[in-house]
């Protein structure tokens, strides 16, 4: 068990013009499951691999427990890693795969046997111990990869998109298993994924990365409710948050042909980006004029795509609710998100209450 402290870490690959990871600082508490999430190429793997010791650290410092590990070999960092393509040794049986790391550490035979048996029991791999990886399904292989990490009893688990090669259903199951295992063992974990749903469901805390920088760190729900930037707003949550061009005029927010009274003065004026989650929009007698384009059925709810004053907008509605080609929508005042248009940063606003019913301008 250990904490992981990342201080101002950067990475520039040899020959690359721009750094892949720049100036990241992050304190991971003992036993915490942190998920690094972001679009492909944002530097998640690079950061993880620097913690693992598979990439040199160009700048900054990584500490595992109290030990600075910048110059320490991966084998001696007391971490275990699970890879996207499992990276099992194809010529070894499941048992040998799990035991290999322990053997190299000269763990006594009976101890290895006990740990492998325990891990196999925990991961329900008992019947497969003497099979080669090729005789296993994708989900089983991934469990073996996790078993290989578990038997080592490391201070930290590192996962690099471990579920991306699995089909959607299995991914949900395995997600649950990883969560359960991690809670049970209480091992500090760093988990990389590009799947925001996986990130939301697994994380104690989420770290949203964009172009090698941290956009936001926080509990999944906090990030969902108060995204720090338009990037986070559009990346976390499905469907993505609606982002609309609007204009601030004192406490009045002008959106196309409508005006929303904000009640208080926000700390900005002029052009802003207004963010509204799809589920926060409700049909009402008066409000934003919405034209329906098409509907996506999700079963429990439906996604209604359309636009207001030429700007695309999505809302989720109960399937029982009637949908007209033209509707009027309003939104709770507390559910309005304002972002600076130029930087995409969130504009802090005091808590508001009541329904913001937009009026025609």
């Amino acid at each position, binding site marked *: 068990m250990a904490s992981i402290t990342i201080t101002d870490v950067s990475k520039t690959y040899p020959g690359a013009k721009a750094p892949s990871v720049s100036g990241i600082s992050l304190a991971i508490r003992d036993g915490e499951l942190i998920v690094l999430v972001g679009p492909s190429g944002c530097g998640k793997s690079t950061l993880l691999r620097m913690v*693992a*010791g*598979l990439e040199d650290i160009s700048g900054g410092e990584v500490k595992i427990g109290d030990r600075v590990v910048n110059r320490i*070999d*991966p*084998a001696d960092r007391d*971490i*275990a*890693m699970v*890879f*996207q*393509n499992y*990276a*099992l*040794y*194809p*010529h070894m049986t499941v048992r040998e795969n799990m035991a*290999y*790391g322990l053997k*190299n*550490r000269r763990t006594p035979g009976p101890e290895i046997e006990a740990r492998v048996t325990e891990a196999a029991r925990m991961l329900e791999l008992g019947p497969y111990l003497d099979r080669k990886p*090729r005789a296993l399904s994708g989900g089983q292989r991934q469990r073996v990869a996790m078993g*290989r990490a578990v038997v080592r009893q490391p201070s930290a688990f590192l996962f690099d998109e471990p579920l991306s090669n699995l089909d959607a259903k299995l991914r949900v199951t395995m997600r649950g298993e990883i969560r359960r295992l991690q809670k049970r063992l209480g091992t500090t974990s760093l988990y990389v994924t590009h799947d925001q749903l996986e990130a939301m469901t697994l994380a104690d805390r989420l770290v949203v990365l964009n172009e090698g920088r941290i956009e936001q760190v926080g509990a999944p729900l906090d990030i969902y409710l108060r995204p720090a930037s338009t990037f986070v707003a559009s990346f976390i949550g499905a469907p993505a948050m609606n982002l609309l061009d609007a204009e601030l005029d004192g406490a009045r927010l002008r959106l196309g042909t409508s005006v929303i009274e904000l009640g208080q003065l926000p700390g900005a004026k002029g052009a802003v980006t207004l963010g509204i989650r799809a589920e926060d929009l409700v049909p009402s007698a008066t409000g934003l004029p919405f034209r329906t384009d098409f509907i996506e059925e999700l079963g429990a709810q439906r996604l209604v795509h359309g636009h207001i004053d030429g700007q695309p907008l999505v809302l989720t509605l109960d399937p029982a609710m009637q949908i007209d080609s033209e509707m009027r929508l309003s939104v709770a005042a507390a559910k309005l998100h304002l972002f600076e248009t130029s930087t995409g940063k969130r504009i802090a606003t005091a808590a508001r209450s009541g329904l913001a019913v937009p009026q025609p301008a």
Partner: protein
Amino acid sequence: MNRIKPFDHIILILGTLFMCVPVLVAVMTSTHSAVDIHMNGLYLTPGDNAVGTYQTVLTRQGGFTGQVTGLTMLMNSLILGIGFAVGKIVLSMAAAYALVYFRFRFATFLFWIIFTTLLLPLEVRIMPSYQVMSSLGLLNSYTGLIVPLLASATGTFYFRQFFKSVPDELLEAARIDGAGPWKFLIDILIPLSKTMMAAIFIIMFVYGWNQYLWPMLMTTEERFFTLMRGIKQILQVWIGSQIPDYNEAFALAVLALLPPVIVVVVFQRWFIRGLTESDK
């Protein structure tokens, strides 16, 4: 499944005959006496001289000094073939391992240099090679026979391509599992390369087995003679009215055929199993 197509079959049968009949002729003819062969030419039917001929060929003290038997020659050929194959595999594997996994500067450039220089056939460098061996005092020795031919561009190339196809994650997993370069090679890479090694073993064994010019240059003592030279030797005794021992030449040729066939059959099974099982 498919309809039987007579024409395809005829072509296949003709091809098989084309490949097999000469071998059959050699086997059959070797069981007749030299005189019969001289009078009647080649045979397609078995004769009654088989045991005698093969016994003579394997055990008779022949040659100039009367020191060399067929068995010795068989041994020598085997030593040459196996020495070649094993040596080439070890050497080219080591070279490829260095080229792929140790990122030194100009590794690719270096590889292409090795590749191009070694593409030159042995015959081009046979005199200098001979001279080097001669001044090292290695003429008439197995070392001299084998070592100069061990460097293999083809082998290095194959192993390099294979190592490059092994996923990086496997190396990384091994590093995290505490395997250093040496352990990674022994525990992971070599077991994974089995099929590759089987393939190269087949090729190189046959290559070594069939060497003729190089052993002839390197060895003058008859106890180093290989089968290939033995066959030649028998046919060279045309002195006066003496009939060459055709039967013995054929018997030797048949004997010379067997080990490569065995090697191919055995290793091919490995090789194919490896191919069908492999997922890296």
